[in-house]
């Protein structure tokens, strides 16, 4: 199935509130999914005999923000955070990508991490990928069995791949910047 057909099936099944736009002309086309419907959509994509997306290639967060006010006008994106899921089906040899868009901070309070439901019940590898996305991009995965930092130490502050991240002055007596 191509992305147009997949998008059609998802729209029919979950409605327009859950499944958003799908720019077909992009090099790797994607389907936007609302955070609330993510687990149901993932489960459907994993189990449906036409989809069988059994392999989660990658899960990562992207922070859309231009911290430099001079360049902000040309940036072309509203500040937000995206969680990108790259899926493929080893049986049907097809690929797709779903995206969940969330605000940079929950309720616009800096420091309050945005919440996305965890898909670790659908794909086992999501467990580690979500821990990494939490660690580096700062996304809280609701329902994750063990959401703690994976690459940075447990007592690290901040999330390094946020665009407005400041490297700490010191860490346990080691000078940072």
């Amino acid at each position, binding site marked *: 199935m191509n992305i147009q057909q997949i998008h059609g099936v998802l729209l029919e099944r979950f409605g327009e509130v859950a499944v958003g736009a799908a720019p077909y002309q*992009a*090099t*790797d086309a994607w389907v936007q999914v609302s955070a609330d419907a993510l687990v149901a959509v993932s489960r459907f994509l994993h189990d449906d005999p036409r989809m069988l997306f*059994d*392999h*989660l*290639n*990658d899960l*990562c967060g*992207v*922070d*859309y923000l231009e911290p430099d006010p001079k360049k902000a006008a*040309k*940036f*072309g*994106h509203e500040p937000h955070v995206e969680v*990108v899921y*790259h899926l493929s089906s*080893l049986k049907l*040899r097809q*690929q797709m*990508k779903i995206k969940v868009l969330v605000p940079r901070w929950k309720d616009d309070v800096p420091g309050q991490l945005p919440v996305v439901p965890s898909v670790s019940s659908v*794909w*086992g*590898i999501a*467990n*580690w990928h979500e821990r*990494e996305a939490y660690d*580096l991009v700062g996304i809280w995965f609701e329902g994750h069995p*063990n959401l*703690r*930092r*994976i*690459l*940075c*130490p*447990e007592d690290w502050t901040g999330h*390094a*791949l946020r665009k407005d991240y400041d490297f700490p002055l010191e860490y346990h007596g080691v000078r940072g910047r």
Partner: protein
Amino acid sequence: MYSVELGADMSLVIEDPRVIEFDVQTDEMLVNMGPQHPSTHGVLRLLLRTDGEIVHECTPHIGYLHRCAEKIGENLSPPQYIPYTDRMDYLAAMNMNLGFALAVEKLTKAKVPARGVHLRVLIAELGRIASHLVGMGAYGLDLGTFSPFLYAFREREIILDLFEEACGARLTCSYLTVGGATHDLPEEIEIPDGLASLTGRKAGERFPFLEVLEMFLQWLEPRIWEYHTLLTRNAIFIKRTAGLGILTPEMAVSYGCTGPVLRGSGVDFDLRRDGEAIYTDMYKGYEYSVPVAPFADAPLEVVVGDNWCRFYVRMMEVVQSISLVRQAIKKYAATPGPVRENFKLGAKLPKDEVYLETECPRGQMGFYLVGNGDGNPLRLRAKSSCFCNLSVTDRICEGVPLADVPAIVGSLDIVMGEIDR
């Protein structure tokens, strides 16, 4: 600082999962394997909860080698980032270069000249041989046999010498770059000392590069069967690997395992054949087969998805790679022209995003690039294959004796530089 309470079902509720010691039972022990344990292939720490000899739980702790590779990538233009990809999987730097260069080419729609494509196949498959040789040697070392390691490194040394003649570096090559390769292979080189002494030629004698390569392959090919007698068919080796660390195909797919780990579990999937067009086009016109478990010639004790299958897939891939290098030599020699389409350093990346996975020796390495009309990508994500392969250790190490943990982790053939990035 952390609270420990009794939950509703009278089990311990620990606020902070770092406080693992509170729920260790009387008979249990917590054993730290690593981060500086020789059999962990780098700085990997495995926290084992054992009851006597039996491992109840195995928790990998990673991140000791984290170098913020993704953050660095947001501040560099793609050709500048190539040396950082070397340092991810440092045992297969050429394959990492290739994966990243292809992802950038997919984003910018750059073309590679035909000679460059054949050069890439030649170099990438040579890199795969070198990487699998280390995988084989180090696995023998994990199981307590030293000699295969020496043989493997003797062979790898020659490949590294050839890489040095081609690009000037042995380990961190940065040779395959956006648009092709940095420069063409040298016409004539001094035969590497190792190869000279092994084939009975005079040291310092000069030969064409491709002839030296062919000489090396001719010498290497029969040696593979020697390794089979040394390791694969060795009774002790079979006892330590067959039927151990069984990874079912369902679990392998769910945990995103790729490469030899996936094929060792009996899933027939190789990106060189089943991947995206930009990658499979490179291998068009090449003949090779993809080794997948189960093997007809396996010993009786072997179960699909065990350590032995994962190891054997690697060994069989070396044979395929030798044949691929031979084909690439012929095609490369028959295709004149440049090897590189120039990519301007400050070229603006289009407003688009691409994700591309390539078949590296250890699995599918993916690069996700988001361009935003600027010279530097907005986001550069490196998806590591070993990261996914390692995440199954806690499942397949449950209930095995302590001494089998290195055998299982070793069979996954991990490189920490790639996991921690």
